[in-house]
């Protein structure tokens, strides 16, 4: 999957203390890019309580359909967009943006996730593995950021699930607005210089921030499911570093200067 950060950076501008989403020349955003755009917007330093959307395209229409702006308003505690024609979202659909303040909210969505995945036609086994892989990512995010959440926003993480029936591809992107891989692992691995090194280390077996307790199950399990079962892709962005995981433990640096700057976004896909 090709990630174009320049496209994401160009969409967001701050003018007269108003956050502007300008979609000029942006026709499409993939699942990972949408979540990165959201992360950049929600963490942006604008101090006002207004935003607007200009030069609308198919990409902005899609963001409205998936509940992007109501979730953004909720997390930044800002009033609804004055010209908004979009609804506050349909909570019965999973294929939209959701935000989770507590991991129990995610666990409460397991019924919806199972129904969605089975309706798409996945087997019981794949449904269970996809849902538990997602659950491990969410569990890790809340466990590793406990007591350390850096941002004062109404929500700790977001999940976007999208299905592309023509390509027979299901995509998930989960971003927590936490401290990132390096800060999490630094206590046990003080030699880590940056988030790229931290992600690379985290993809190895038995690596955990929970030492002296054992751990390191979650990412190990996710990689096995993706590369031995789903035949999908895995991307991880933490802080300034974006990596493509090509196979179990085989990590390729894609971008070492991502401006989103904090939190961790884990994307995975599966072909069905």
């Amino acid at each position: 999957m090709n990630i174009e950060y320049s496209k994401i950076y160009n969409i967001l501008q701050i003018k007269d203390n108003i956050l502007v989403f300008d979609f000029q020349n942006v026709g499409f955003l993939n699942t990972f890019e949408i979540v990165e755009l959201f992360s950049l917007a929600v963490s942006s330093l604008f101090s006002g309580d207004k935003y607007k959307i200009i030069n609308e395209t198919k990409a902005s229409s899609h963001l409205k359909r998936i509940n992007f702006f109501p979730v953004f308003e909720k997390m930044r505690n800002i009033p609804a967009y004055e010209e908004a024609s979009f609804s506050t979202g349909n909570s019965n659909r999973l294929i939209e943006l959701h935000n989770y303040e507590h991991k129990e909210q995610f666990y409460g969505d397991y019924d919806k996730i199972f129904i969605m995945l089975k309706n798409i036609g996945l087997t019981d086994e794949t449904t269970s593995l996809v849902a538990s892989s997602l659950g491990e990512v969410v569990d890790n995010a809340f466990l590793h950021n406990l007591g350390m959440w850096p941002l004062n926003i109404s929500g700790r993480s977001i999940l976007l699930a999208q299905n592309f029936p023509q390509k027979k591809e299901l995509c998930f992107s989960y971003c927590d607005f936490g401290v990132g891989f390096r800060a999490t692992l630094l206590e046990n691995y003080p030699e880590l210089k940056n988030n790229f090194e931290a992600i690379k280390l985290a993809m190895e077996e038995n690596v955990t921030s929970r030492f002296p307790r054992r751990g390191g199950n979650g990412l190990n399990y996710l990689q096995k499911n993706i590369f031995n079962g789903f035949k999908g892709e895995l991307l991880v962005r933490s802080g300034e570093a974006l990596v493509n995981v090509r196979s179990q433990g085989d990590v390729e640096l894609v971008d070492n200067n991502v401006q989103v700057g904090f939190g961790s976004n884990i994307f995975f896909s599966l072909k069905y």
Partner: protein
Amino acid sequence: MKTIEMKKFGKYLAGREAGKHAYDFFIKEIEKMPKDEKIFCNFQDVLLLAPSYCDELFGEIQENLPDKLVIDKNIGNALKKAFDTVAEVRDLEFMYGESE
């Protein structure tokens, strides 16, 4: 052999805290049992088992009280993968079998 039906803990078994609570329940049950009696874990109607939950419950017991647990050999592949992950990380083996 005592049977514990895992569906009584929920159809989605996920998360470290939930696994720890289940561990406490198991330990209380074990304390009431004769020393050589085993526990058969029945997974009928359980749809999901996450490795974090599996680690906190079954990984802890298997490591501290080996030979106490018998895991239902008819569990599906998805649930089995959680056990495989924990077994690999903890370098131990789970015992699979049937209820007596």
